[in-house]
């Protein structure tokens, strides 16, 4: 098994973990963390699969580079929205889940 495939498999595991976290966590900040882990997992899978036994592939690298920057913007926007929700409703969870702040 080559190193690249190992990272791709890790990416798959991280993706599934992030997905489970996004479904199961109540706290919005934790959901944002789970979303980031999910994203990192898919990036790892893309790059790892592109690198199997060959020269480094620039196309997935460019795609993931844009992905990383978009992910940080999405994180910041999500944090701003969560903060707004907190100041309006006093809770850090979505309607339907039990209230949490900290």
């Amino acid at each position, binding site marked *: 098994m080559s190193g690249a495939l*190992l990272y791709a*498999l890790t990416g798959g595991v991280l993706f599934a973990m992030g997905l489970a976290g996004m479904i199961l966590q109540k706290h919005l900040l934790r959901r944002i*963390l789970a979303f980031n882990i999910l994203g990192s997992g898919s990036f790892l899978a893309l*790059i790892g699969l592109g*690198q199997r036994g060959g020269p480094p592939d620039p196309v997935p690298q460019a795609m993931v580079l844009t992905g990383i*920057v978009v992910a940080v913007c999405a994180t910041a926007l999500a944090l701003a929205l969560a903060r707004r929700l907190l100041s309006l409703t006093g809770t850090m969870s979505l309607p339907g889940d039990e209230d949490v702040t*900290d």
Partner: protein
Amino acid sequence: MTELLFDALLAIALVWTALRALLVPELFRSVMLFIAFGLLLALAWARLDAPDLALAEAAIGAGLTGALLLDAVGHLHRIEDARRKQENPEGRERRGEPS
């Protein structure tokens, strides 16, 4: 051989930090573990011959995501503290609450 061992250790560490970041009870610890996860991910990009990604991950993980998340955690802490003070003006201590 050594390099494969390095990859395996790094992969285990990535999964472990991510898992703990999702599972630990305290928010602050989970953010700390996530920051560690980001730095390990930069090492993974380096191993995957993708220095462009390692650069971006290092700059964004160390310079931005960490600051954003820590700021959000601090904001939550301050609100929590203000609320406790309101409920509990004499400042009686409540020990052992998870944060």
